[in-house]
């Protein structure tokens, strides 16, 4: 139609993690998401772009935000979105992951969005289906669209990612959000500082994750991590994953690592506060911080729809590469 229009070069079928994305691909997704934000502000919040495409949301773990966000993103692009949650599916009848995937594939979806408790489940499915597979969180491995929406939020607030100091506080060990964010932020040149109970900081993380043009390090105390931070990201204490006695009690965690006004004052005066949600008020974040003027927690949710629209458009928009 317009022979001069520049084209996107996202030559991949799936989005499984940030680890295998290039800096250029991340930039492309963020640029596209930036323009999709406008669609959500229209009176008629729908464009015909993915008309006739089918997106299946296959969630083996509970989720409100991510599942709704993917569903809204698909619907705003005019795709048909179907939601399957494990508790109401044939999984409870004993069907294996592979069989579930093969059966869904037989119904010819264009994209499968999957959340699973086991790391690597989306990769496994992507190898046996023709549909684009989008990882919506797998075990403690990756949650790529969360890192992308965090990056969009940081970029909009700080004008860029390179050189920005990001403190990530909490349970790094179990957090796929932290892992995807560390990949993305270091690739884009940010300075990442991690802090939390020693038992929840994975040893050797610096060696596992190539730092790109940015850097990642552990701080000895939460105060040290917060000092001079441009962005403070509090992670949710995953109550469902704390049976291992990683810290004495929630009260103890809150006293030592909870994000409150006093601690936030150590960061830069214009530092923004992020949280992937759902928040545990009074545990990892105080209400006056979560609801405060520097909290961008709801902006993250808003940006999440735009990022997921961009990912669906770039992966399921045209012919398969």
């Amino acid at each position, binding site marked *: *139609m*317009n*022979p*001069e*229009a*520049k*084209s*996107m*070069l*996202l030559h991949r079928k799936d989005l499984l993690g940030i680890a295998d994305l290039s800096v250029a691909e991340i930039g492309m997704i963020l*640029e*596209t998401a930036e*323009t*999709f934000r*406008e*669609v959500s502000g*229209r*009176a*008629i919040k*729908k*464009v*015909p*772009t993915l008309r006739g495409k089918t997106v299946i949301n296959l969630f083996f773990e509970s989720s409100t935000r991510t599942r709704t966000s993917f569903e809204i993103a698909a619907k705003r*692009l005019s795709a048909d979105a179907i939601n399957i949650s494990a508790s109401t599916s044939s999984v409870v009848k004993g069907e294996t992951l592979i069989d579930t995937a093969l059966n869904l594939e037989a119904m010819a979806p264009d994209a499968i969005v999957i959340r699973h408790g086991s790391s690597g489940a989306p990769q496994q499915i992507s190898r046996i289906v023709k549909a684009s597979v989008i990882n919506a969180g797998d075990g403690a491995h990756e949650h790529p669209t969360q890192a992308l929406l965090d990056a969009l939020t940081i970029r909009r607030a700080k004008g860029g990612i390179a050189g920005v100091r990001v403190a990530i506080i909490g349970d790094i060990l179990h957090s796929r959000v932290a892992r995807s964010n560390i990949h993305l932020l270091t690739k884009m040149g940010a300075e990442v500082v991690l802090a939390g109970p020693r038992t929840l900081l994975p040893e050797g993380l610096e060696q596992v994750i190539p730092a790109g043009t940015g850097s990642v390090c552990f701080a000895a105390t939460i105060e040290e991590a917060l000092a001079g931070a441009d962005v403070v990201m509090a992670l949710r204490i995953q109550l469902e994953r704390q049976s291992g006695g990683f810290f004495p009690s929630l009260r103890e965690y809150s006293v030592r690592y909870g994000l409150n006004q006093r601690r936030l004052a150590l960061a830069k005066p214009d530092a923004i506060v992020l949280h992937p949600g759902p928040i545990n008020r009074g545990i990892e974040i105080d209400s006056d911080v979560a609801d405060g003027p520097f909290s961008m927690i709801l902006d993250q949710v808003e940006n999440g729809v735009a990022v997921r629209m961009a990912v669906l*458009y*770039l992966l399921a*928009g*045209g*012919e398969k*590469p």
Partner: protein
Amino acid sequence: MHFIEKTRLMTAADMNRVLMRMASQIVESNPDLSDVILVGIRRRGVPLAERLAQKILEMDDIRVTTGALDITLYRDDLSTVGDRPVVNRTELPGNITGKTIILVDDVLYTGRTVRAALDELIDFGRPRRVQLAVLVDRGWRELPINAEYVGKKVPTSEKEIVKVMLPEFDETEQVIIVEPE
């Protein structure tokens, strides 16, 4: 692919004259210019819409509202193009219901871009009327679409490409016909 230049259709001075004529035709057919919005289709329609607005301002001392439309999400060939085209922002000024919209584009060819633009406009409101202004009409329509304001009508062959070059995107300002070598 390499292209060879076949003909120069318009120089910068020709383009200026033609835009001046189109601007006066727009003024003539729209007695109430306060109701008119000039909406450029990205990319090259946008600076052309701005220029028409500028000419109208010089002529009638009225600043006509302008906007920009990105039709990427409304294209009918998305499932056949390999790479996903870059999506740009649509920027329409306020409510378009009841307004006269003049769509502005550089070249009118198959008419499919205009079809996409009409669909997108309708999603923003119900304009009183929609008109079309193009710098070059090169024929080969595939849809029943016509332009009210035409800078220059030229017969072309299907292999040829009409290139409108504007300083906003290119190094020179001219309209040329090129053909793949």
